[in-house]
């Protein structure tokens, strides 16, 4: 908006320059870039018609732009109160003015070297817009016109230092947390195959035992000899597995431990009786 505003003001100023007799303007204006590796060609600037914007003036690093002009009020050279060369960075609208040092006869010059420029100008992607303002008090019409475009070339070996952007209160980009991916199970079919393979071992084992002559023929004999001990012992072993199952499915540690202690004690006491019976059988040569 600022930009628009100043342009409109400039346009108004231009239009007024045509018909008002006592208006500010300049003449005999030249610009020159001096410094290492820069062509020292002078270029003429005329009030009201900017140097073609398609070919901006190039200001290489560590060189100086020199603009000379003669300020005039009406047709006579005169010293204005304000004689500025204003550079504007087009994207951000930032401006910086450099005052001409003007003699009483209106002859003025200004030197702008790249080291005088703010970093935003040095890093600008587009050429800077340079305009000349000549104005003073009283009723004379001021002059403000686009003069030329200026392209800043930086020394590629030492790019300008860009300070970190100052903090401004505004909204910030959104952030969405990226979650770690969940652990993955292998394909169900593989798990199933292995599960099956594991389960098959149980019948396999029992089959192998039976094949090798395992049997439960002494069941009656054992229970006949010490029914309580054997019943309790086998029962407590199964019960212990039951306790484990309950721990797995629903119990907490403090429900499990007493139960396991009771079952364990039963197993220990009855087991010693039952195993004595087994030993008796072994000693009798029946095992």
């Amino acid at each position, binding site marked *: 908006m600022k930009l628009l*505003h*100043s342009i409109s*003001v400039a346009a*108004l100023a231009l239009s007024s320059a045509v018909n008002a007799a006592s208006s500010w303007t300049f003449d005999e204006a030249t610009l020159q870039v001096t410094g290492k590796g820069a062509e020292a060609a002078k270029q003429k600037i005329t009030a009201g018609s900017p140097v073609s914007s398609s070919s901006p003036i190039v200001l290489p690093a560590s060189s100086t732009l020199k603009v000379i002009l003669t300020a005039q009020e009406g047709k006579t050279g005169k010293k204005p*109160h*304000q*004689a*500025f060369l*204003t550079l*504007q960075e087009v994207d951000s609208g930032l*401006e*910086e*003015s450099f005052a001409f*040092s003007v003699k009483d006869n209106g002859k003025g010059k200004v030197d702008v070297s790249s080291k005088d420029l703010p970093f935003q100008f040095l890093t600008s992607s587009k050429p800077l817009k340079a305009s000349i303002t000549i*104005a*003073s*008090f*009283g009723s004379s019409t*001021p002059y*403000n016109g686009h003069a030329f475009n200026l392209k800043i070339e930086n020394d590629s070996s030492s790019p300008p230092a860009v300070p970190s952007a*100052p*903090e*401004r*209160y*505004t*909204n910030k*980009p*959104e*952030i*969405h*947390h990226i*979650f*770690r991916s969940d652990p993955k*199970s*292998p394909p169900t079919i593989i*798990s*199933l195959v*292995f*599960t099956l*393979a*594991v*389960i098959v*071992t*149980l019948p396999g*084992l*029992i089959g192998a035992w039976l094949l090798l*002559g*395992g049997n*439960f*023929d*002494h069941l009656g004999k*054992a229970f006949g000899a010490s029914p309580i001990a*054997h019943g309790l*012992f*086998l029962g407590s072993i199964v019960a212990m*597995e039951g306790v484990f199952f309950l721990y797995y499915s629903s119990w907490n540690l403090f429900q499990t431990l007493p139960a396991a202690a009771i079952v364990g004690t039963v197993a220990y006491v009855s087991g010693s009786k*039952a195993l004595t019976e*087994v030993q008796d059988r072994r000693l009798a040569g*029946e*095992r």
Partner: protein
Amino acid sequence: MRLPLLGLLLGLLSFVSALSASGSKLLVVIEDEADKGKYSQFWTDLENRGFQLTYRSPKDASLSLFLHGEPAYSHLLLLPVRAKGLGPALTPNLLVDFVNGGSNVLLALSGEQSVPSAINSLLLELDINLPADRTSLVVDHFNFDSKSAAEKHDVILLPSPEFKKGVKNYFSVDGLIAFPRAVGQVLGNASPLLSSVVKAPSTAYVYNPKEEGESVEDPFATGSQINIVSAFQARNSARFTVLGSAEALEDKWFSASVQLPVPGSKAEKSSNKAFAQKLSAWTFMELGVLKVGQIQHYLNEGSQKGISNTSEVASIDVNPEIYRIKNDVHYSIELSEWEIDHWAPFSPPQGDSLQLEFSMLSPFHRLNLQPKAQTANSTIYTSEFKLPDQHGIFNFFVEYRRPFFTNVEEKRTVTVRHFAHDEWPRSYVISGAWPWISGIWVTVGGWIVFVALWLYSKPAEPKVKTR
């Protein structure tokens, strides 16, 4: 963070008498009793808006900004003084303490009188620079009032201030505002607390009429880098406004007829009165004051899923201190904005948004809060999201700091714990665990069969001869 809240509370208490959100006592420091009359319209306006004005001269021995160590006034209006200093009651340190105490200051400068050094060093603390020679003016040969300053060009006419996208404009007026003999301020680039309200046009510049009468060779500042009105809002939301032209508040300019020096422009009435009203309203906390109402966060899963749409919210555990990682949560915050004389629902300006951060050391989530509901004087903003998979002590953090709004900084600390031992998926749910589970049960079965075999197996008939 507490101070503005306290201020808001006080503001509420004094609701009946004052319309500012932070109290009604306004101290006007004016050097000459005789000058008081120059601003009579402004005073009337302020009094009509509910402020209790106290006029004091800086030389007044009884002048003190503090009472029992607390700021004695909610607001301070400093008009330009001719003396070189401001006296012992208004030293920079005291003024800084005054602002730190949560009070607002409207400082009016004038290019006619040199700026006291106390003001200068005070403004330097805020990173506002004034011209070194202290009597410089802003002048613009393109935008001046051709009626009153046809020769000197030192009455600048500017249209209503405009701001970039996402910044609320509290200062817009119709027509032109006149700034006679303004002192230009240059703002430092670092501070986010500063913002310019009225900038000079790009052809303006600062000059010292005494030394640079003929021409300027090295102006203090040029173009839009010059601020005619700038605003500073401290971290405690206390406001400090610098108005470059005290004259703009005078009755003379409230009803002046002004005209741009451009052919074809018409003379019109200046909008100074409206602007002075808006500027003082903002500075004295009648505008842009935000209030946080209820903040709620709660679990949004299991039986509480989607509960925010129902009326059962009251019955659940709201604002728990501990969550678990990957919990779904609901967060809501209620915000109101003070509009001259009442609390209104707040909505951020176009292009801006209220954001919630869920952060530990750095934000894990930063989400735009969505307005969900509106009450008579507040808007409820909500967001629903899944907590990150990182345990720790996190903050629900809403930090809404924007130019011209009082600061909102609401931190709710919660603990995000890890999965407890019984919150993981059970092993039978995981297909990869099936072989292992079946292995366990095969072992159990094998063991029982083995025990039985061991106990009850009858030896095979001695088919095999022993060795």
